[in-house]
């Protein structure tokens, strides 16, 4: 700075003189940095009154040739205050610091692809950047959760039905482009794909996140980019900066979950059903079965009454007592709690002239809503950069360490089989509940010779000891050598290793151990002797997962600007990845605290104590492993002409140990091209109200792989058959043509800003997936009935709009951000025809040509008949031929009810600021999709699955004529499962999913040194945050939150959480 001031003084003195002495400076050099000492690439450096200009390169360096001595240069760039240097005399301007313009609407966004960082305005592809401020707006333990509701085109999928093999990822970027292959976006952390557990990343260590959405942005990631890429960048130090300490701590309290959210049949009505079923003899087979299956307490009373063991008055009294009880109240009181999450993070960063450093440590302690479940995490992160040889060599070493402990000791509500169970008696003793066997049986079985066989859920809370410990290390090294200005070579290496040990100890008092020992207890009738092949003691299950990955990358980077017209930036390189994982299972019997273990003979078949069946003692030992290896070659270039036309291209080829030789040798690289045009820089452009307009077009391919397939005929080894011989199982038949899936994306983008008020981006995209992995039915006579290969196609298109508006500026400020996304897809080719409509209505993944991948299909409802039976349209007739309808292969008998995932979504965020206060609220909306509401049906009720509205029980068809008043079918005995399925999947139960919710509210108050001179720290923020505030509007009248649709089990919406915290900088 001093240097420049002197120049300016000299310039003023010698103004006339220099005009006379017309001498030319051959090369004028300089380097531009920001206040933090970071080089600023992409700034426009021009000589006043001439056409000569130059853009700074990635090191912030510019070189202007043939500059007249005494000339004035101007430096401009989006996000920075313009600067001028007058009266240039010397060829080397040294380092120039310019000021960030915080008031500019368009702060320069540097997006990172994992291979390079570029200013967003110089990229042709579709990028979304989430900066540090936005990341810190929410207070979550997991970094990815902070993308929710603030990232254009990205949605968090809800109601994922894992058990139904729906292959849905929790995050989708621009909809869906695969069927069976990996549905998850690629996550890149510090330039390499992340193979560890994302929970091990401390969000406080993250500087920013870039989401790569189209082919031009993501195709550099080749066969891994088909679902979009999320690039996470860690914090680093800054050159020439005094040590800065950053402290962040918060506490989040979550409300107890609302267990009454899921509609459920009341205890009273269920007892009514049990009476009915008992009379019909429904339980007779269970009552007399020799394996003593569990009966509900009410049925037990009814049996005793039938056997005249108790009086009718007593049984009525006992049953009445149950009518008034509700297990949910008990669960809420004894199994659930308020959640408490604490976060502490302390970091220090800074740098000198030749080094940078960042060091941080973080601690998280989360107590879950379910008692007994908690999560602890310690993270340590150290990163150091040194430069040598006049900054020609830059060497960065980073080490990350995480230790996590997760306890899973909560009692699953799924073990509480009846709606009226009590967990504690009046005097506070933990009660036993019916679980696997009939209460009367376990009361007397084995007379004293067995272990206590009762299941007391609240005792289990203390007995459970299921802990997972994860340790993860990551070492990341980057070595960069500048060969000459604008051309550098870099080597990067990362080693990542994690080990997770899940130790599930069922101690001797646990129900699991007691039950297992009892099951195998042998009784010798003649001798009267009881023996226990499973020894008394605990049972310890260990699951040991180890993963490690090595990544190596060599890359050359080149950037150069020729006078004011041509700019070129290019990179090329290769990458080698080796990812290993092993899984080890083991089980120990007779385990005690001293580590004693019993020897077990696993070969004999023992008769189970409780039935006539036989079985072996489970050995539960296995070891498997996976190895994924890749070699990739990549290149990328971008050419800028006259600062307003940009042409970009990138390509990548991946070879892998899962593809066949054919694909590895002949596979075509995945590539993309793109162009952009900054119209406002044209001479003819005169729209003053629209100072910035840029058009972008890109097209190219992304890829995806399915790790479960292999090109050769393969068999999977098993450990031991019934004869204790090793054996193997054939997998998918050979497929020498296996290759990666391809997604072609075309993206049209428009970036604009209206003076200082409104700016935004509008994008339209088209996606075409081909060679997608799909299944096809084959004649089972060939030995398999389904074959998987590259046989399916999909198509999709959508719109992403993001608008930022600065509504009011000044002491009181008001900003609004609107995100709008529309995304739809359809399957265009799928060889496997649904063999019956039953799989189309019920399976989690039901590709049908012409419809979105996730769609709801339903039977067309035709009302109840005079017997209260459901009717639907079948071959255009009102029909009750349930079995024929359900097993029909003719999909034309189904109604397409609509997409099952939101097609329109986004958010509206308003931020108000006044003095040090900032208040913001985010409203998110999801529209254009459908879900099925649960309703009463006989099969479910009879088997005790009671999750439907209680009122439907009284409101069901009960007598002739009711069919005019209700659509809820009669309870029919015996239950006809197919009849019930027809109703369950009829369109009368389909509801619109559209809804709007107030996702969160954040309040921040910042103390600055300017206002509080006594402040001992540089800056101090206090913040409060409320998450899951509530649903504002929903289209369905069933009272359901479409993000939490019950599907045969109790669920509850994420409880509201309240956080307060402090963020300070020293």
């Amino acid at each position, binding site marked *: 700075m001093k240097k420049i001031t002197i120049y300016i003084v000299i310039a003023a003195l010698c103004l006339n003189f220099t005009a006379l002495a017309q001498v030319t400076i051959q090369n004028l050099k300089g380097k531009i940095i920001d206040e933090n000492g970071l080089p600023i690439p992409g700034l426009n450096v021009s000589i006043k009154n001439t056409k000569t200009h130059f853009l700074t390169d990635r090191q912030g360096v510019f070189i202007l040739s043939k500059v007249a001595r005494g000339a004035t240069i101007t430096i401009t760039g989006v996000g920075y205050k313009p600067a001028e240097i007058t009266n240039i005399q010397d060829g080397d301007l040294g380092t120039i610091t310019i000021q960030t313009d915080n008031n500019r609407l368009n702060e320069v966004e540097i997006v990172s692809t994992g291979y390079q960082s570029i200013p967003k305005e110089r990229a042709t592809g579709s990028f979304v950047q989430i900066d540090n401020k936005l990341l810190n707006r929410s207070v979550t333990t997991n970094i990815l959760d902070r993308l929710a509701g603030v990232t254009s085109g990205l949605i968090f999928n809800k109601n994922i039905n894992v058990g139904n093999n729906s292959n849905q990822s929790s995050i989708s970027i621009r909809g869906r482009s695969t069927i069976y292959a990996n549905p998850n976006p690629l996550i890149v952390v510090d330039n390499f794909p992340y193979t560890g557990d994302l929970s091990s990343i401390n969000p406080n260590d993250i500087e920013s996140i870039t989401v790569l959405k189209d082919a031009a942005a993501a195709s550099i990631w080749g066969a891994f980019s088909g679902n979009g890429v999320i690039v996470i960048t860690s914090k680093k130090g800054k050159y020439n900066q005094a040590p800065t300490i950053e402290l962040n701590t918060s506490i989040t309290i979550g409300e107890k979950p609302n267990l009454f959210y899921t509609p459920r049949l009341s205890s009273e009505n269920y007892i009514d059903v049990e009476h009915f079923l008992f009379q019909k*003899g429904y339980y007779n*087979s269970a009552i*007399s*079965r*020799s394996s003593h299956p569990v009966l509900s307490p009410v049925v037990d009373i009814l049996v005793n009454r039938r056997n005249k063991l108790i009086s009718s008055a007593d049984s009525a009294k006992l049953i009445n007592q149950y009518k008034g009880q509700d297990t949910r109240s008990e669960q809420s009181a004894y199994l659930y709690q308020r959640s408490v999450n604490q976060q502490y993070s302390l970091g220090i960063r800074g740098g000198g002239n030749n080094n940078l450093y960042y060091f941080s440590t973080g601690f998280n302690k989360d107590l879950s809503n379910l008692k007994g479940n908690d999560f602890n995490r310690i993270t340590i992160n150290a990163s150091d950069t040194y430069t040598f040889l006049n900054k020609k060599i830059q060497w960065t070493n980073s080490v990350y360490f995480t230790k996590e402990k997760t306890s899973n000791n909560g009692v699953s509500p799924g073990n509480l089989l009846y709606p009226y169970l009590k967990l504690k008696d009046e005097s506070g003793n933990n009660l036993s509940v019916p679980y696997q066997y009939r209460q009367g049986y376990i009361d007397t079985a084995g007379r004293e010779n067995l272990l206590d066989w009762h299941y007391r859920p609240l005792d289990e809370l203390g007995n459970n000891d299921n802990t997972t410990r994860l340790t993860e290390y990551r070492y990341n090294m980057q070595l960069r050598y500048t*060969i000459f200005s604008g*051309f550098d070579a870099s*080597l990067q290496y990362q080693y990542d290793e994690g080990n997770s040990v899940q130790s599930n100890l069922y101690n001797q008092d646990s129900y699991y151990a007691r039950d297992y020992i009892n099951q195998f207890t042998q009784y010798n*009738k003649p001798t009267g002797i009881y023996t226990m092949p499973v020894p008394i003691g605990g049972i310890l299950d260990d699951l040991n997962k180890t993963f490690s990955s090595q990544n*190596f990358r060599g890359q*050359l980077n080149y950037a150069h600007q020729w006078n004011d017209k041509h700019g070129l930036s290019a990179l090329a390189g290769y990458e*080698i990845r*080796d990812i290993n994982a092993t899984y080890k299972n083991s089980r120990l019997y007779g385990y005690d605290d001293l580590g004693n273990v019993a020897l077990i003979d696993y070969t004999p*078949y023992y*008769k189970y104590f409780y039935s*006539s*069946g*036989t079985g072996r003692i489970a050995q539960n030992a296995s*070891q*498997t*492993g*996976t*190895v*994924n*290896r890749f*070699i990739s070659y990549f290149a990328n270039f971008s050419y800028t002409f006259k600062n307003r036309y940009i042409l970009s291209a990138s390509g990548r080829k991946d*070879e*892998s*140990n899962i593809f066949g030789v054919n694909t*590895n040798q002949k596979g075509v690289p995945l590539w993309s091209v793109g162009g952009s045009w900054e119209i406002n820089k044209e001479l003819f452009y005169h729209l003053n109200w629209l100072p910035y307009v840029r058009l972008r077009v890109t097209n190219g391919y992304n890829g995806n792989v399915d790790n479960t397939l*292999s090109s050769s*005929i*393969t*068999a*999977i*080894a098993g450990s031991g*058959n*019934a*004869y204790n*011989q090793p*054996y*193997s*199982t*054939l997998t998918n*038949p050979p497929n020498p043509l296996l290759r990666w899936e391809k997604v072609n994306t075309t993206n049209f983008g428009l970036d604009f800003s209206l003076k200082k008020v409104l700016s935004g981006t509008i994008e339209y995209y088209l996606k075409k997936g081909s060679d997608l992995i799909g299944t096809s*039915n*084959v*004649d*089972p*006579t*060939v*030995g*398999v*009935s389904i074959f998987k290969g590259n046989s399916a196609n999909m198509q999709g298109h959508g719109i992403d709009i993001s608008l930022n508006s600065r509504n009011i500026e000044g002491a009181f400020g008001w900003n609004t951000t609107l995100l709008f996304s529309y995304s739809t897809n359809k399957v265009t080719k799928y060889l496997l025809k649904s063999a*019956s409509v039953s799989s189309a209505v019920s399976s989690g993944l039901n590709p049908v040509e012409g419809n979105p991948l996730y769609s709801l299909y339903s039977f067309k409802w035709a009302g109840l008949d005079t017997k209260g039976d459901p009717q639907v349209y079948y071959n255009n007739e009102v029909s009750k031929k349930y*079995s024929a309808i*359900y*097993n*029909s*292969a003719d999909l034309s008998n189904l109604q397409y009810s609509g997409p099952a995932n939101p097609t329109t979504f986004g958010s509206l965020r308003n931020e108000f600021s006044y003095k040090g206060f900032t208040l913001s609220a985010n409203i998110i909306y999801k529209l254009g999709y459908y879900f099925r509401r649960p309703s009463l049906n006989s099969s479910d009720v009879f088997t005790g699955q009671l999750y439907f509205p209680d009122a439907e029980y009284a409101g069901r068809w009960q007598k002739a004529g009711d069919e005019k008043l209700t659509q809820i079918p009669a309870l029919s005995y015996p239950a006809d499962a197919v009849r019930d399925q027809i109703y369950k999947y009829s369109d009368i139960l389909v509801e619109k999913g559209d809804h709007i919710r107030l996702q969160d509210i954040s309040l921040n108050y910042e103390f600055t040194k300017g206002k509080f001179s006594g402040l001992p720290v540089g800056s101090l923020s206090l913040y409060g945050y409320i998450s899951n505030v509530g649903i504002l509007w929903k289209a369905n009248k069933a009272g359901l939150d479409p993000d939490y649709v019950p599907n045969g089990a109790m669920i509850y919406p994420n409880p509201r959480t309240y956080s307060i915290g402090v963020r300070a900088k020293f």
Partner: protein
Amino acid sequence: MMKNIRKVSCVLLIMASLFTISCKKDFLDKKPATNLNIPTTLADMRLLLDNTAVLNRSPAIGEESADDYYMTFEEWQNQYSPKDANAYIWAKEIWAGKTNVVEWNKPYGQVLYANVVLEQLNKIVKNSSNEIDYNNIKGNALFLRAWSFFDLVQIFAVPYDTKTYDTDPGIPLRLTADINSPTTRASLRETYHQILDDAIQAKALLSLPTSVKNGNRSSKAAAFAFLSRIFLTMRDYKQSGLYADSALNLTSALMDYNTLDTASSTPFLYDNAEVIYQNYLVDNNPIIYVSNSINYSIDTTLYKAYEPDDLRKFLYFQNNAGFINKKGTYSSNSLNSNGLTTDELFLTRAECSVRNGNIHAGLEDLNKLLLTRYSTGKYQLFTTSNPADALNKILLERRKELVMRGLRWNDIRRLNKEGYNILLKRSLNGQVYTLPPNDPKYALPIPPDVISLSGIKQNDR
């Protein structure tokens, strides 16, 4: 400029050499999962053939359709899968539109294993050091293919009859692992020809049995015993008797039932002395419930046919609340064994001897077997000079000895062809269902997905 070029070439050289060092030529040849195996060696073939859960299983629907058991109306109504209820009453439609029919897919899955092994074997050079292994594995695969085809033809084709076997449809004979080769139905004659061809080749290749501990693997004795069973089904009593004889020459041990524990719920072991080849009926069907559930019972008349001194009455059965459950099977667990055993061979040889005119030899075999089945000293030797009486006694004892061993359905089909006129009858809630002798319904319908995907002809029922 020259300096820069030198520097650049130097850097390029370093980077290229780093690539070569870090990445060897076979880097991408590593298999993606440790437990994933590309079967190429004889040991790999052995692993495939030892997949007992896939290979040593036969459909149970024949036994389900036979007359050795009954279930109550209540249970019949509550059958989880409609095919079990339909098969019980010999309905016209069995599969209720369901695809992935285990009775079809399981045996053809086994055929794929056999074909994969046979095709991969072609790529292995046989020499003096691997010859025994090679032959055994090839014999094993051929035995397996014959076994699966035999299972299929008993269910999906009408009984063997030389009068009509050129026009009676058999089953598709898949002899390749290539999933693209078309499926066609062979005639019944071609089907049996292929089964015999595979089994006879296997017979020549397989070694003598080593240990009953490896009862899941076929041996020369197993091939003889299996051929005897095939020929019996074909009513070729001469060949059947000869093969039974060959098998019994290799192994003829019988257990003395007096040494077994009648109180035990599993009195027999899977590796008992009589087992030549171990195979099981698939579970998840009424046959499994007959072993341990009330409302399922062994046919009352059949149960009454066991005399009080007959130990089988106590080793085979237990009374479960009035229902006769079949407890002991030759499998150590509740799966029903339909493997090859010496007791079956004695009965087959006895029957063939009588049919071939040698009553004396037949009764000798029968008495030898029954002596081990009765309480010591309580068995009265059976004697007669009337061939029909002898045959009836042997057939009754065959039914009693081999109850729930997956053979009754085959025997009914065969004996009806011999004119025994066995009428199958079920009574459910007052309604009576029958299956007349030699009815076309003795061949079950081919699953609907097979018909629609392959276009082969459905059975007339």
